[in-house]
C-alpha cells in the first residue's frame, strides 16, 4: 500500500477512497445512503450433480476444498458461534495452505484468540487479509501495519448486508455444525459441541458459491431441527471435534460482584423504570457483559414489583434471560447467540426461545429489522465523547480491541443506553472526540456511569419523562470534568500513524471511520 487517497465523510472522519482495490462510499449520515440494484445470488445448481441418495460426505476438508475449486485469491468464510473454542476455521485455512492456495481473504463473522495462528498463514502468504473483527494478537498484527490488505470491520448486520449486496463475494463458506446430516442440514442446538444458534452462518449458506458443512456429530437424514438448509450445501465433512466445548459456552455466567458495576447496572434498570420504558409488553436487549447481566437481574425484580411483563427480550442469551422466560416475565427470547449452558439447553427445548439471524435481527438493507423494534438496549463501549459518539473497536491508543458485533445495529432501538465505568485504570472513558467513530451520537441516547447519568440533549422526551426521578442526572461534560479532575487532567493524545490499516463500516456499507497504523 503506497499513498492512499482519503476523503472526509459526513461524520467528519477521513476514510480511504478505495479499500483492497474496491471503490468505497463514505458515510453519509445514519440513513443517508440508499442502495440501488438487486441482491446478489449464487450460481444455479442442479440436483443432477448431487448424489441422488443425498449423501454429500467427502473424506476430509482438503477434498472438499479441492472439489469446491479452491484457487488463489478466493474468499473463505467461517462463523464464530463456537467462539474461542472453534477449531474449524484454522483447520480449513490450514487445509487450503496444504493445497497450495495463496492470497486468500478470510471472512470470519468474528475472530478469536484461538485463531492467532492465522498470523503464520498471513506471514507465509496463504492469507492476504482478514475482513472481520480482530483483537488480541490478530488485532496487533493488523494495527502494526503487517497485514498486506486492509482490515474491514463490519457489524453482524453489516456483514449480512455486504454479502447480500455483493460488496464481498464468498467463494467458499465453511460452516462448523454441532449437528448435521449427510445432506448438509445443520444445527447448533444439539451435539457435544452444541452452541445454540447458527444464525451468523446463514448468509454464508445462502450466498456463497460453494458451501461445506463440517460436523463432529453426524446424524442420519433428517437433522431435526435444522437452521442451515442442506439444499444450499455442497459437501459434508465429518471430523473428530469441531471445537473445545469448555470454550464454546461458559458452564455458567456469573453476575459481577464489583460494587461499582452493580451500581451502574442498578441505575440502568431504574432508568428504564422511571422513564416509563419498563411497561407491560415492552422489549429490551442486553449482552453478556458483567454490567448487562446484573442489569437484567435488577430489572427482573423491578418488573416483578410492578407486575410488568415483556413481550420479548433479545439475546445474546444467558441463564438470566432464561429465568425471565421461565418465570413468565417475557413471552419470548429472540436469540442471536447463546452464551452459557443454561441458554443452550433452553434454546434446544423451549419453543418460546427462538434462534434469529442477522437478517431478521440486524440487516439494514431489508424491509425492516428486529433491532429497531426493541424498546431499549444496554450496551458497553470503550469511549464515548461529549457529542455522544461511541467507540467499541479500539483502545484509546488506537489498538484494535473488539469487533463491532451487533453493537451498531442495536443503536436503532427506541432507547440506546451505554453503561460504562467513567474511567478505567486512570483512563477517562468520556473524551472530547472518540478515537474511532463506531456509533454516531444521534443514535446514542443515554450514558450511565457510576458518577451519574447523562441524557443526550436530542432526547428531550427522555429528559421530560424522568424529571421526577431520583437518579443522579448530569450533563455529560460535567461527568467528564469530574473524571478528568480525579485522573489528574486531560489525557495526552496518543500519536497515530498516517497509514490506514483497517476501516469501520456503517450498517449500510458506507465507510464510517479508519483505524490507523499504531506507531
Amino acid at each position, binding site marked *: 500500500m503506497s499513498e492512499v487517497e482519503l476523503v472526509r465523510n459526513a461524520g467528519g472522519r477521513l476514510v480511504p477512497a478505495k479499500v483492497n482495490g474496491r471503490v468505497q462510499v463514505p458515510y453519509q449520515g445514519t440513513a443517508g445512503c440508499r442502495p440501488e440494484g438487486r441482491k446478489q445470488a449464487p450460481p444455479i445448481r442442479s440436483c443432477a450433480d448431487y448424489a441422488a441418495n443425498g449423501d454429500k460426505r467427502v473424506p476430509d476438508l482438503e477434498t472438499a476444498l479441492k472439489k469446491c475449486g479452491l484457487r488463489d485469491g478466493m474468499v473463505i468464510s467461517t462463523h464464530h458461534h463456537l467462539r474461542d473454542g472453534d477449531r474449524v476455521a484454522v483447520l480449513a485455512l490450514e487445509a487450503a495452505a496444504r493445497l497450495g492456495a495463496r492470497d486468500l481473504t478470510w471472512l470470519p463473522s468474528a475472530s478469536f484468540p484461538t485463531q492467532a495462528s492465522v498470523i503464520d498463514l498471513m506471514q507465509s502468504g496463504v492469507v492476504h487479509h482478514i475482513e472481520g473483527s480482530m483483537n488480541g494478537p490478530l488485532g496487533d498484527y493488523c494495527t502494526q501495519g503487517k497485514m498486506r490488505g486492509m482490515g474491514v470491520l463490519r457489524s453482524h448486520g453489516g456483514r449480512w448486508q455486504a454479502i447480500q449486496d455483493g460488496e464481498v463475494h464468498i467463494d467458499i463458506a465453511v460452516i462448523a455444525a454441532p449437528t448435521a446430516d449427510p445432506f448438509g442440514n445443520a444445527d447448533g442446538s444439539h451435539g457435544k459441541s452444541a452452541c445454540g444458534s447458527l444464525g451468523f452462518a446463514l448468509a454464508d449458506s445462502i450466498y456463497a458459491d460453494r458451501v461445506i458443512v463440517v460436523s463432529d456429530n453426524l446424524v442420519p437424514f433428517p437433522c431435526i431441527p435444522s437452521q442451515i438448509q442442506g439444499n444450499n450445501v455442497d459437501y459434508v465433512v465429518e471430523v473428530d471435534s469441531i471445537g473445545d466445548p469448555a470454550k464454546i459456552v461458559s458452564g455458567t455466567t456469573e453476575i459481577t*460482584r464489583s460494587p461499582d458495576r452493580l451500581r451502574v447496572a442498578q441505575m440502568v434498570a431504574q432508568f428504564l423504570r422511571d422513564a416509563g420504558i419498563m411497561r407491560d409488553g415492552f422489549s429490551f436487549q442486553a449482552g453478556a457483559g458483567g454490567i448487562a447481566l446484573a442489569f437484567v437481574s435488577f430489572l427482573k425484580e423491578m418488573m416483578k414489583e410492578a407486575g410488568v411483563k415483556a413481550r420479548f427480550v433479545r439475546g445474546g442469551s444467558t441463564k438470566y434471560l432464561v429465568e425471565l422466560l421461565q418465570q413468565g416475565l417475557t413471552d419470548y427470547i429472540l436469540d442471536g447467540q447463546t452464551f452459557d449452558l443454561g441458554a443452550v439447553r433452553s434454546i434446544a427445548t423451549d419453543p418460546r426461545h427462538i434462534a434469529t439471524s442477522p437478517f431478521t435481527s440486524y440487516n439494514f438493507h431489508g424491509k425492516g429489522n428486529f433491532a429497531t423494534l426493541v424498546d431499549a438496549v444496554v450496551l458497553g463501549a470503550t469511549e464515548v465523547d461529549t457529542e455522544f459518539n461511541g467507540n467499541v473497536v479500539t483502545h*484509546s491508543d488506537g489498538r484494535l480491541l473488539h469487533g463491532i458485533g451487533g453493537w451498531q445495529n442495536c443503536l436503532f432501538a427506541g432507547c440506546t443506553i451505554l453503561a460504562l465505568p467513567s474511567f478505567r485504570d486512570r483512563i477517562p472513558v468520556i473524551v472530547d472526540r472518540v478515537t474511532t467513530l463506531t456509533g454516531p451520537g444521534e443514535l446514542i441516547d443515554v450514558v450511565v456511569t457510576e458518577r451519574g447519568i447523562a441524557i443526550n440533549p436530542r432526547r428531550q422526551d427522555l429528559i421530560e419523562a424522568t424529571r421526577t426521578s*431520583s437518579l443522579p442526572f448530569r450533563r455529560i461534560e460535567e461527568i467528564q470534568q469530574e473524571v478528568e479532575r480525579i*485522573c*489528574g487532567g486531560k489525557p495526552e493524545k496518543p500519536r497515530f500513524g498516517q497509514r490506514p490499516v483497517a476501516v469501520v463500516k456503517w450498517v449500510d456499507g458506507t465507510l464510517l471511520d479508519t483505524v490507523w497504523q499504531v506507531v
Partner: protein
Amino acid sequence: MAVSTDLNATGVTEAGRWGEEVRSDLHVALEPHAAGGIEIELESRVAPYYGKAIRAQVRDALESLDVRHARLCIHDAGALPFVIAARVEAAARRAALGEGRRALPESVALPSSSPRDRLRRSRLYLPGSEPKYFINAGLHAPDAIILDLEDSVHAAEKDAARILARNALRAVDFGAAERMVRINPFPLGLADLEEVVPEAPDVILIPKVEHREQVIEVERRANEIRARHGIDRNLWLMPILESALGIENAFAIATASTQVVALTIGLEDYTADLGVVKTAEGQESLYARMRLVNAAHAASVQAIDSVYGDVADMEGLRRWGQASRALGFEGMGCIHPLQIAVIHEAFAPAPAEIEKALKIVTAYEEAQQQGLSVVSLGSKMIDPPVMQRALRLVGQARAMGLIRGDTGIRGSKPA
C-alpha cells in the same frame, strides 16, 4: 506482587505494588545518588495518556521532599495522582530522605464539619494499603468511610499506609460520608496521628481500648497536633472495645473525653479474648454488646455494633442488623459496599413505627400550641419518655430520608 530485580542493590528502597492483579497502584524503587540529578524509568499501562504527567508529578514530589539526586524505577498500574505522591514519599522516607517534609497532592474541598450526633448506621472499612477501594467508596453512600491503618495493614506497610491515608483524606472526594481513620495502638498510633490529623479527619477510631487513659492520651496528642496545624474542625473519637476488660470499663472509657461520640465493639478480638467461638448468632457476645449499649447510653454517646463478616450472606446481615437495632445499637461496620444498603434498611424504623411516632409528635405540637401540659392521643395520655422516644425516632427517620416534608411517610426503603 512483582519486584524489579535489577535494582535490588544496596540502598534501594521500594514502595507500593504492581503486577497483573494490581489496579490503581504503582511500585516505586528508589536509589539515592550523590549527584547526577533525577533519573526516572517508567513503565505504565497508561503511559500514552499520562506518561508525561506521571514523570512531572514524580519530579515535583521529589522536589517537595528535597530529594535532588536519585534513580527511580517505576511500574505503574494506573495509579491516580494522590497514590503516586504517596508511594514516592514512602520510598523516599524509607531511604531516610525527606525528613519533616511532605509531598502533598492537590486537595478537594472539605465537606462540612461533622456534627456530634449525626447518623452513623454504616461505616465502610477501606484497607489502608488498597487505594483502588478508596476512589469510589463515597459513591456507595455509606454514612462513614474508615481508612484503616490497623488490622488490614501488614506490619511492614504501616508507614506507607499512613501516608496513603493522609493523601486520600486530602485528595479523594468521599461525598457526604464522614471521614474516619482507624489508627494503630500507641506508640505506632502516634505516628498515625501525626500524619493524618493535619488533614482533618472527622473521627479517629481507637482500637483495643481497655482503659480511659488510652482515650485521654489520644485526645491530648490529637488536639496538640490540631493546635499546631490550626485545625478547628470537630475531631471525634470512637473507642473500640475488643476485650473483656474493655467491656468492663465501657462507661469510664465512654466518658473519658468530651470528644468521644460513640463506642463500638470488635468481636473477633473479644471472642478470642474469651476463648469462645464467634458464631453467626452471636449469643457468646450478647452480654458484652448489651453492656456496651448500656454504657454508651449512660454516657450519651452512640452504641455502634461490629461488622458482619460474610459478605455473600445478605439475609444473615439483615437479620444481624435488625437484631442489633433492637438491642439499642445505632449502626454497624461494613466490609463491602454491597452491605451498605442492607444495613441502612435494617437500621431504619418500620413504617408503622414512624407513623405512630408522627402521630405522637403531632399531638405534642398541638398540645404545645394550645398551652396544654398533658399530651394525649385519642383516649390515651402520652408519658414524657414515650414522647421523647417519638421525637427522637422522627428525627432519625427524617435524617434517613424516610419522611418527606413534614408528614408523608416514604416507606422503609431508602432510595
